[in-house]
């Protein structure tokens, strides 16, 4: 007869313990919320050697301590590239002085048309944190393959214009160069502001 009486509190104790454990686990597993897609750990560290808009060689290691944001495009791009870069520029303006910790890397997948001079005038329009990068096909393929993105050039028309298919992904890294977040073309500026702020203040 005493069994049911002693059993009930034990069940309650176990349930209580489970609840405490669950709160503890959920508490330490998600301290931060990200607006962009969290891809921490599923891609390799940032690594490249390319030429910047001033003709100087730039390596990923030169950016240690900064928050690199990597984007592939081309200056003749009619829609996605200018919109994405404008979104990023808007996000940086909202960050204020903290924006200095960020470097937006615009890597051209159309180096034949995007000379250093073209790149320079293009990225300057978006802000001082923007760096235009170009390289030969080997350097370019190395970097695109590393981030599992690609690009393709269409056939040229009578005027020599051609279509370019490329990735719309925005890869965000942390100060150590580890991959953290992925932004899509549809993500608004405030998502970038929110997540970049969190990354800047992370130590």
């Amino acid at each position: 007869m005493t069994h049911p009486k002693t059993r009930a509190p034990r069940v309650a104790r176990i349930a209580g313990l489970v609840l405490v454990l669950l709160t503890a686990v959920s508490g330490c597993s998600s301290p931060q919320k990200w607006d962009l897609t969290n891809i921490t750990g599923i891609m390799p560290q940032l690594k490249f050697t390319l030429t910047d808009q001033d003709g100087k060689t730039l390596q990923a290691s030169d950016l240690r301590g900064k928050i690199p944001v990597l984007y592939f495009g081309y200056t003749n791009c009619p829609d996605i590239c200018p919109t994405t870069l404008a979104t990023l520029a808007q996000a940086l303006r909202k960050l204020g002085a903290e924006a200095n910790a960020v470097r937006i890397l615009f890597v051209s997948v159309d180096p034949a048309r995007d000379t250093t001079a073209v790149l320079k005038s293009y990225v300057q329009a978006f802000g001082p944190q923007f760096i235009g990068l170009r390289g030969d096909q080997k350097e370019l393929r190395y970097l695109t393959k590393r981030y599992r993105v690609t690009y393709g050039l269409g056939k040229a028309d009578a005027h020599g214009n051609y279509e370019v298919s490329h990735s719309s992904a925005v890869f965000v890294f942390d100060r150590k160069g580890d991959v953290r977040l992925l932004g899509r073309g549809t993500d608004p500026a405030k998502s970038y502001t929110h997540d970049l702020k969190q990354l800047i203040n992370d130590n």
Partner: protein
Amino acid sequence: MSTFIAFMTPYDFSPTVLAVCLLSAVLFVRGSLAMGPDEARPGIWRWLSFFVGLIAIYVVMQTRIDYYSQHMFWVHRAQHLVLHHTGPFLLMLAAPQAAMARGLPHFAHRLLVPVWRSRVVQAAYRFLQHPIVAAGLFVGLIYFWLMPEIHFKAMLSLTRYQVMNWSMLLDGLLFWWLIVNPNARERGGLGFGWRILLLWAITMPQIVLGAYIALHHSIVYDVYNVCGRAWPISPLVDQEIGGLITWIPTSMMSVIAAVVVLRMWLRDSARRRSPGAALVKSELA
């Protein structure tokens, strides 16, 4: 010639794929040649089936096709058609296990046979080859890797991508062996009626999924937009073709497999009716 070399060069070279394919080929050839005429020595059709299957699997995993599979949805679906359906089906149609075991060097044979016969491995194998588990796994894996969230990260992470492809291949081998095992039920194979039922059961969900993808008016898998396509093509056209590949050739595979099973079934019942005649026939073969 240079385009051929460019095509044959692996996009992401995998020593594992190369080693497994080479080893399988060597074991099969060595074992087949060592078998006497009184054993179940593979004939020309089994050789053909084995090598067409093996080469197809190697080609979709280790040539330029692998690059296109990573950056074009419909090529990815075609790759999985080979990895999960056609390739393993052809390999298993050759029933190569006995020949491959025979091709093992003595020390490997002594090492591996006890492992294979151990209680744990046998229990796991029997579980995976339970008809309901096998069919559930076959369809479940297709659905799992095509869940948009899972698919997205599988295409971003090289490790996940490789796990995805290997899981499809291994599951394909298990499933199609269940279907085309030449042994009738009393010799350890699954009953022929069961096999037909399984083929029917896996077809419906594949048609539903393929049709859902092909007829969807918006983009289901945006990872190809995000990562860029191998050449300029309308994303919806890419998705339509990918959906059709998930829908039609996979169902055709079930039909072809059903024809193979029916033929085995008919032969088996003929053998039962006149055991003497069948014995003479099998001695001649």
